[in-house]
């Protein structure tokens, strides 16, 4: 039976040929399957990586557009500030020109009048000074004669030997002092007492030498002409100023600025509105490039019921920030607080004046003191006022920068006046300005008393005849007191005359132009920035709002503001109160310090110097008492008020919490993307029918990106923000919140994009149906926020 005709199973049992071939075929199949597995794994991995890249770059691109728009917005707000600053300068020109011209023309007229009619006052002062020198010598002669008379009688016996000894000591001191005044202070000789001062002028010159040296030509014409020439030079500079500024003044700069500000603001709004479309177009371009499906999501703002989220720009017009109603605890009324011009006008924090009573003990001691003092408890425009808060930081800096250009002309005028001062000093033989030392109030006795004490005595000392003195001595003492007072008075008058002599033409030499310019710039600055705040034609960060001081910071802010308010009230009021008290103390002279003085002028000057410290202490006590009562009231209102925070204040103390809160970051600056493979871009499998042509579910990737500002941690910007202390302003005022900077300064023009941990994924899934559908199709069907958050952060 042929083998081929045998039943198959019989043949198989006998014939084992081809078994290896079958095994080999199976092995080959396994190896091919291995090849497919390796290939397909690479394919899925690559497609997955590509999808993730698409999601990452798309999220980054969206955040980049947000950053670009924020940067452009910051730049445009600076353009608006530059327009405003331009208006400030324009407004400052005319009043400055008028003020400087009026002053120079008045000076010119005065000098012309003097040239025409003679400078009688100057000549009179010169004559008066010479006469005063003669008077000093005459008074010295009489006073010295009177002193000699007293000295000759001082050796007689007195009822009270101790009083007699004191009288003799005082007579000796009077003689020494009188010789020192005449020989050293007036005539410029070295002091015979080593511990006493030398002559009052430079180089050891006494009053006599100073008068002689400062003897000018009797003809005032040369220096009047010098003044006139200088004024003409100054006027020429002013004409340059007017010529340069005329083309600017001829234009309606406020209108130009306003129009441009409106135009820029319109551009800002258009750009803000176009951001969503831009980001979506960019998304579509990315999707086309990667051949994947992409969608966008936000945590809420701009989320769309269908399709990708319409990402909202992270800034809004300033006018859109809501006004807040607030109960003013000081005024007892409800007020509306403007979020841009904050705490200004009707919503200013004002207290008014307080009456500070003088302590009864002080009143009893000094009847001349006012029973109550009026203490001003406000500052100009109210505590904590801020105009155009979101842009004022850059605006103020820009005004200072812009004002430097025309300030140069004012500096030239002031320089010419300084040069005139030098020239006049030369023409008048004054030499360089000299500070003539005033006649000292007291001198120290070179001899010790029996107790070994070197007493200090007035210049000149007043003498009192001891009990039991002879009538002749009493008369001699009276004569000495009379002539001694006249002598020291004459010396002090001569010193004053010399000072007046030096300063006679100060009106024409004192600098005033720069300060005039600065004052007018400041006035215009306040006007313009207030108007910018009223117009509200600029953008602010979307997170900018009036908000309460955070709870954790309230106590610190209360302490800080209270201290600052108290200090300001004291510093603003102490001078006037102290002066009133000082006047009363000088009048009463409670320590009898002035009894030994002969001349009233010297006495008063000495008493003022002696009591000023004590008067300041009393004044401080009075004002501080009121300030410490008022400051907590103002501080309480201060802390209870909302402040214009650019970002949500941190919920914990700073440090360690610094920078933008998670809530702000998610709400305004975060964008998520999801990417899914398309049918045409799904993984292409080798042995597809066996392996399954595409993975089910389809591939999915997501990414989160955000716009952030580099300067958030720079100590000159966000890094220096404190929330529990007052913030100082350049004009010495202070405010209760960090100054906004993120959308209006150079530092604010530093937004950038970055990929972030997907900590907003849960919110995004909740608010964006299309985004969620990507996840659902990709096999992620659950959305437990806690699980997602945990996964994202680990």
């Amino acid at each position, binding site marked *: 039976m042929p083998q081929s005709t045998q039943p198959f199973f019989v043949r198989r049992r006998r014939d084992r040929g081809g078994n290896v071939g079958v095994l080999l075929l199976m092995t080959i199949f396994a190896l091919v399957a291995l090849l497919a597995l390796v290939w397909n794994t690479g394919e899925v991995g*690559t497609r997955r990586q590509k999808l993730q890249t698409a999601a990452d770059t798309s999220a980054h691109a969206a955040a980049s557009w947000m950053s670009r728009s924020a940067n452009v917005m910051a730049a445009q707000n600076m353009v608006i500030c530059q*327009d405003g600053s331009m208006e400030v300068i*324009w407004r400052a020109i005319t009043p400055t020109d008028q003020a400087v011209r009026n002053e120079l023309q008045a000076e010119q007229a005065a000098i012309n009048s003097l040239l025409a009619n003679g400078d009688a006052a100057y000549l009179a002062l010169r004559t008066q000074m010479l006469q005063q020198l003669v008077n000093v010598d005459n008074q010295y002669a009489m006073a010295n004669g009177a002193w000699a008379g007293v000295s000759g009688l001082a050796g007689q016996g007195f009822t009270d030997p101790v009083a007699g000894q004191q009288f003799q000591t005082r007579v000796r001191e009077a003689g020494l002092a009188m010789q020192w005044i005449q020989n050293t202070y007036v005539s410029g000789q070295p002091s015979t007492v080593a511990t006493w001062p030398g002559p009052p002028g430079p180089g050891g010159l006494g009053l006599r030498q100073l008068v002689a040296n400062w003897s000018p030509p009797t003809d005032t014409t040369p220096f009047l002409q010098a003044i006139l020439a200088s004024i003409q030079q100054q006027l020429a500079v002013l004409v340059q100023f007017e010529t340069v500024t005329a083309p600017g003044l001829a234009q309606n700069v406020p209108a130009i600025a306003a129009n441009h500000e409106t135009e820029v603001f319109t551009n800002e709004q258009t750009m803000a509105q176009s951001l969503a479309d831009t980001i979506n177009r960019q998304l579509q371009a990315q999707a086309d490039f990667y051949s994947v499906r992409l969608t966008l999501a936000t945590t809420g703002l701009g989320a769309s019921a269908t399709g990708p989220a319409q990402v909202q720009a992270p800034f809004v017009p300033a006018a859109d920030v809501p006004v807040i109603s607030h109960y003013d605890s000081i005024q007892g009324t409800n007020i509306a607080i403007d979020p841009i011009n904050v705490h200004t006008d009707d919503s200013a924090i004002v207290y008014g004046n307080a009456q500070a009573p003088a302590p009864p003990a002080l009143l009893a001691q000094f009847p001349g003191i006012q029973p109550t003092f009026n203490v001003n408890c406000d500052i100009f425009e109210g505590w904590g006022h801020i105009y155009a808060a979101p842009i004022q930081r850059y605006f103020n800096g820009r005004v200072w920068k812009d004002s430097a250009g025309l300030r140069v002309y004012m500096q030239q005028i002031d320089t010419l006046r300084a040069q005139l001062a030098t020239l006049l000093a030369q023409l008048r033989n004054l030499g360089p300005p000299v500070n003539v030392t005033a006649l000292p109030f007291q001198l120290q006795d070179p001899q010790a008393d029996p107790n070994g004490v070197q007493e200090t005595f007035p210049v000149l000392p007043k003498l009192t005849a001891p009990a039991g003195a002879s009538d002749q001595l009493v008369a001699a003492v009276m004569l000495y007191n009379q002539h001694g007072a006249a002598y020291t008075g004459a010396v002090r008058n001569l010193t004053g005359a010399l000072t007046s002599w030096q300063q006679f033409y100060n009106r024409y030499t004192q600098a005033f132009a720069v300060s005039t310019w600065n004052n007018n710039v400041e006035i215009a600055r306040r006007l313009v920035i207030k108007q910018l705040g009223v117009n509200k034609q600029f953008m602010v960060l979307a997170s900018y709002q009036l908000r309460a001081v955070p709870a954790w910071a309230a106590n610190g802010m209360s302490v800080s503001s209270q201290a600052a308010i108290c200090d300001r009230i004291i510093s603003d009021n102490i001078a006037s109160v102290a002066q009133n008290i000082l006047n009363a103390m000088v009048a009463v002279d409670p320590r009898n310090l002035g009894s030994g003085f002969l001349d009233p002028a010297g006495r008063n000057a000495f008493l003022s110097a002696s009591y000023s410290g004590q008067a300041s202490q009393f004044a401080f006590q009075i004002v501080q008492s009121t300030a410490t009562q008022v400051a907590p009231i103002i501080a309480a209102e201060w802390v209870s008020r909302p402040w214009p925070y650019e970002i949500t204040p941190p919920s914990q103390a700073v440090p360690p919490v610094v920078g933008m809160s998670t809530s702000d970051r998610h709400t305004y600056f975060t964008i998520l993307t999801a990417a899914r493979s398309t049918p045409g871009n799904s993984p292409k499998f080798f042995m597809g029918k066996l392996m399954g042509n595409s993975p089910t579910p389809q591939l999915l990737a997501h990414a989160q990106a955000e716009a952030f500002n580099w300067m958030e941690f720079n100590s000159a910007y966000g890094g220096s923000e404190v929330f529990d202390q007052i913030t100082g302003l350049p004009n010495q005022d202070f405010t209760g919140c960090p100054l906004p900077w993120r959308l209006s300064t150079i530092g604010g023009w530093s937004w950038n994009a970055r990929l972030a941990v997907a900590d907003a994924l849960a919110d995004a899934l909740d608010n964006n149906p299309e985004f969620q559908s990507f996840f659902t199709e990709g096999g992620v069907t659950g959305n437990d926020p806690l699980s997602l958050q945990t996964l994202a952060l680990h």
Partner: protein
Amino acid sequence: MILYHYKLSRCTSNVPRSALSRRGTAEIEMILICTILITLLMLAMGAMRIGVARLGTTASASFQAFNDATASGNPQFTGDAAVPPIDGVDTIRPGFPNRVSDPTASANPAGGTGMAGVGYSANVGFQAAAISPTWNYSGFPVGSDQTFNSQWLTSYVDESHANLYVPLGLAPAWTP
């Protein structure tokens, strides 16, 4: 061919062959089939190499794109417009550098087939795309971009300032 011959002889011959005549056939089959097995193994290895290369180029291109967008100091515009730049806010006030960085990374994994002198090579590549920079004041990362920013701001300010810089003594618009 050998298999074919074996099958022919097995199906058409009526003469039973002795066991002696079939001795060594499996060994010969094994030896011959090794060529195929080795080739398949080499192909699997090659597939792995290509897969690794594809993953590598994808990661490399992505990294390069982000590097260009965030830290690179050189202008990145490649000019091939793989992703055409979107005008966006630039249409309202043009002048800012609007670039797309779309670097391509490629690799040429090579391998053998198991036969001497017979090898293969593949070319794999990936292109990523990121927009950059963000038009910030400093122009970082592309320092020269500050020139664009300067010109942009200056031209904007000049619209209102052009005739007023000198009369009002204003500071230049840049630096702001």
